[in-house]
Structure formats: C-alpha cells, structure tokens
C-alpha cells in the first residue's frame, strides 16, 4: 500500500506534517485479509510494514471492508464512501483501541488517504 516513495511524500508534505505534529502511534490498518502496521514517531511516519503478523502490537486499528474501501480510494468516491467517518457511519470501517491519536490527528489520517488517491501515487500502487 505505501512504498518508500509514498512514505517520503507523506513525510515531506508540510500540511500533513502540521496535522501529525507530536503524534506517537502504532496504527494497524486491516482491509479484509490484508494488514499493514504504520509506526508514527514524533509526527513522522517512520515505517510501514505489510502483514500478515503473528502478534501485532498496535495503539489504534482501522478495520475496513474491502469493497467499501475500494470505493473510498477512488479518485472521486461516491457519496457515503468518500470519508473515513462516512465509512464509520455505514459500518464499513471500525476504529478500535486507543482512539486518542486518531481523534487528535484526524486531519492527518484523512489527508494521508487523500494523498494516496493522487494519480501519481495511485499509479505506483497499481
């Protein structure tokens, strides 16, 4: 989902750095059977590791239904699938664990996924 170039692009974006300031979190992202672990230290996305994991430790987990997530990640998502909280409302995303870093840095989470929708980064992910 996020390779070294994407990770560098996320960390180099001044708007994203503003929303992630002081952030410390281990984020588990689960889309269907696929999982990733993001480590954020002092506002920097330090690493992204793809699963599967045997005993993953995490602060907050985002668990999404793959069909809804695929629509969410389109360049122009349809209404009701266009935002993390929209997915939460329709039951297609569960946010679990310590919600504090997620709510403290909600703009960052939204902005990271918006960045991954950008055409250049989408091509890399394809």
């Amino acid at each position: 989902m996020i390779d070294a170039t994407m990770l560098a692009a996320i960390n180099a974006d001044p708007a994203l750095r503003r929303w992630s300031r002081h952030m410390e979190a281990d984020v588990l992202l689960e889309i269907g059977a696929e999982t990733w672990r993001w480590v954020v230290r002092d506002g920097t996305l330090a690493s992204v590791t793809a699963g599967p994991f045997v005993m993953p430790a995490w602060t907050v987990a985002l668990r999404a239904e793959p069909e809804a997530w695929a629509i969410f990640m389109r360049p122009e998502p349809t209404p009701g699938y266009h935002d993390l909280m929209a997915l939460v409302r329709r039951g297609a995303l569960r946010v679990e664990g310590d919600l504090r870093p997620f709510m403290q840095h909600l703009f960052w989470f939204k902005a990271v996924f918006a960045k991954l929708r950008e055409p250049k980064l989408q091509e890399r992910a394809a």
Partner: protein
Amino acid sequence: MIEDIVGRYMRVEIGGAQHRIYYEEAGQGIPLLCLHTAGSDTRQYRGLLMDAEITRHFRCISFDLPWHGKSSPPSGWWQTDYQLTTASYVAAIQAVSRELGLDRPAVLGCSIGGRIVLDLAARHAAEFRAVIGLQSSAHVSPYYDVSWTHRPDVHGGEVCAAIVSGLMAPQSPEDERWETLWHYMQGGPGIFRGDLHFYKAEGDLRGELYRIDTNQCRVWLLTGDYDYSCSPEATLETASAIQGASVAIMERLGHFPMSENYALFRTHLLPVLEQLRGEC
C-alpha cells in the same frame, strides 16, 4: 473593494438573560433570515449576502447565535455548560426577528438551522411566511462519540473541523472548503458539542411534522448528496411527512452548500427564491 455586507450588534433578552448579538445584512425587500450550522457563524452566508441577484429582492440577514462568532455568551457563562435546545434556539430567532422589526420573515437554515425551521413551520407559522431547510431532517442518530469534540487532550478547533471536513463534497472548491473549516476551528470550547445536543438528542422533531401547514408556511428542503450526517434519505423521509413540502437533492454538494460551493448552490436556491417571491 468594500463589500455591501454591513455588520452590527444588538442587545436583546433571550430566555430571561441579556445577550449581545452580532448580525450582518445586505439587500432590501422580503426579509430572509439565515441560520448558520452547529459550531459555526454568520460567515457561512458571505456568498449569499454578496449575491446581487438575491439582495435586489431580499433583505438578507444572518446572525451569530449566542456563544457563536461575535455574539458573546451571557454573563456567568463560565459557570455553565452550553447546550442548545429547541426552546432556546426558537427564542433566539424570535428575539432577533422582533428586534429588527421583521414582518413574517422567510427563514433559511442549514443543519441545526435546517432542523429548527421545521419547528418554526410547525409551531410558529404565524410569525414566519416560509422556511427553506438546507440539510434538513427531523432527526439524526448519533454516529460518533461527540465527547471527542471537547476534551483537554484533543485540540477542539482541529477535531471539530476534521470531523465536519468529510461532510463536504470532494468536488467543492478547496478555498471554500477550507474557509468553512476555519470557522469551525474558531468555535468556543464545547460549543459544537452543545449544539449537537439539540441536533442529535433533544431536538427530535419527527412527532411534530404533522403540525406543518404549508398553506400557512411554505416549506422547501434542499440537501446535498455528499452529506452523510443529514443524508438525502433523511431529508426525503422528512419531506414525505410534510404535505405540500418541496424537496430537491443537490448533486456534488455536501453539508454546507452555501459555504462550500456557493456558485453551485445558488443554481438550486435561485429558483426557490423566485417561487417565494411569486407567492409573497
């Protein structure tokens, strides 16, 4: 360039307490009172108040609810938790309308404003000639824990703005979306949460819709399709309970149509105001 919008203050009694209320207006003609969303202020109507096609025929007025924008909270505010209720919201609207000497104004409200106009039409139709509800529904079930909007360990302005950011259409112009969010970042501590008390708990108006007589108070409902708080389905359900209500779903708009993409929103609003003029 100096804009035509003029801002002033009024001192009025609302619910037994003295309030200093900020309002701004532009235009002349049929009074059109504009109500902002939860946790925001009058600036959401900057596009409408600068629209010459509207201000030629309408006296457009927007005011900051108590505790919002440049309206001060009442004396002793530091000793209380703010909570908006149906009664306090209606009292504020009536006080402003009375103080300005408005003659049966039409009321345009969005979100919480789109909710309260239903109560105005149901219970106070003698005072208001018509209502236009934007993102209007009689009820919204909670879908997140609103206590996150007022905590010492989470920046209130940032989290309120971040929560509502997704309610806008992704196609809306970036400048207008971020200005809408800036207003949320400037809300007082706990005020958005206090407004949501009315929106998601106390102000359930489903049982009141049968009272609305659209012959006495005309009802239009306009809802953007990207809004997942007040969804198109919720607006359509509300409209179906009001005989004679007009309803339209606006594509590529979200929860803040007048603020997030005014150019697109006005294409939906102008025909409504034209009809309203024809009926006055």
